[in-house]
């Protein structure tokens, strides 16, 4: 990579106290556990440290109680700078980790649909990026593209 889009990002100092011991995690917390440590494609920091994601950026709609159907998990991330050229990669890495985790298809009748977008106004081409990330065909083709996979692996390989 030649020049960094954001050479001096603000890095949040995190307390590693992650949750109350013994208490089961909510779905929102479980999704956050899956994505918080994804590494930024440009920096040796996590998405959480760079404030790209936090717990509140995860929005859950539960599936209907009484009938079969799906719920929704919506992650809206904030790129570090409004011209970040790697925003799509960040979105794809969030999608790939959540899909891999199996959290979308728990056992039983219910399942979840996933939507990943960047927050309106946080990127100069947010509309374009969100259209790309919402295009299931482009996303699945990206996951088969060796060049993109290589970058994605750099963001997620250190994760369990």
């Amino acid at each position, binding site marked *: 990579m030649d020049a960094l889009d954001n050479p001096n990002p603000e890095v949040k100092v995190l307390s590693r106290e992650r949750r109350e011991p013994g208490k089961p995690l909510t779905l929102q917390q479980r999704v956050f556990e899956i994505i918080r440590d994804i590494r930024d494609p440009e920096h040796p920091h996590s998405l959480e440290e760079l404030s790209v994601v936090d717990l509140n950026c995860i929005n859950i709609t539960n599936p209907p109680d009484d009938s079969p*159907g799906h719920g929704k998990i919506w992650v809206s991330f904030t790129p570090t700078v409004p011209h970040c050229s790697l925003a799509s990669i960040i979105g794809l890495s969030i999608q790939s980790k959540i899909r891999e985790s199996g959290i979308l298809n728990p056992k039983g009748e219910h399942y979840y649909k996933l939507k990943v977008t960047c927050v309106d106004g946080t990127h100069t081409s947010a509309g374009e990026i969100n259209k790309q990330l919402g295009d*299931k065909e482009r996303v699945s*083709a990206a996951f088969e593209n060796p060049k993109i996979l290589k970058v994605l692996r750099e963001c997620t390989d250190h994760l369990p």
Partner: protein
Amino acid sequence: MGRLELQATLRGHVGTVWAVEWSPTGLLVSCGTDKTIRLWKLNPRESSYQLITAFSGNAFLRTTRDLSFSPDGRSLAVACFDATATVLELFGGKNPRFDPVVCLEGHDSEVKSVAYSSSGALLATCSRDRSVWIWEVGLDFEYNCIAVLHGHSADVKHVAWHPECELLVSSSYDDTMRVWVEDADDWFCSEVLSAHTGTVWGVAFEGAAMASVSSDESLIVWRRELVRNYPTFRVAARVDHLHDNGALCVHWKTLIASGGADDCICILRKRNEREQNTQSNEQITSNLTESWDVVAREQRAHTGDVNRVAWSPVHDNILASCGDDGLVRVWRYVDDDIQRG
């Protein structure tokens, strides 16, 4: 009103099933992320479907996205994300099998759709690379590219031929559809249709009319009419909010079937002349000439997006579908009004 009755669930694919198509004689073929082409046959005695052959080999390096049978049923074109389209020959007889006969190269990136013209003389392919290619089909599986069509400003998602003449429609991520025709060996874009406000995922013809579906959640019915002596597609009906999160596929055989990212299949029927008299105000003000009613909605046709719907060419009211849940399903549309008499 009507309903869809599930006839069969066909298991075997691993991961998303992207396309399902009928052969002219009523065989069913499906493909998806597992790079395998599966051919299914109805066993009429048990009214069940059985797998008769599966083809994978090393022919496909990535997801197989779309399928088209030639009108004689001998050739099956397969669109692949590895930037190729491959033609398989189907050998009949007691133990049918597929053999790859030609690999069409030229596109720069994912091939997303393939379609034989109704005469079988032409094959169209389209790609992420924004282009549409037209191939002439010669004897002995000889394919020559006769036109590379540029115009779309983003991925071309789908191609569909007019059933009676050599007119091609392509639909795109750029939210438009383009109509391509030939004049003295030159193919050119005769019309750009921009009634949708999102990616146009699918187009289906019946006669000179066509239906299109989009991530804007709507379905549009188009009729071809002479405007100043020039044939032009015009919006005849539009059904908004048909599929939450986007309509992904459409097929038309008297009834229109559609599928979407809401995991539903909808069946739509044109309101007849008599019913038509009760036109809605909306229709009168918008110059729409027809109304289409949703006569059946299968809420959870698949446990995931419905990627394709296809009416059987040989059986009445039989519909195949496939989805992100890895399943192929066969349905029968039952019209309760007719049954009641």
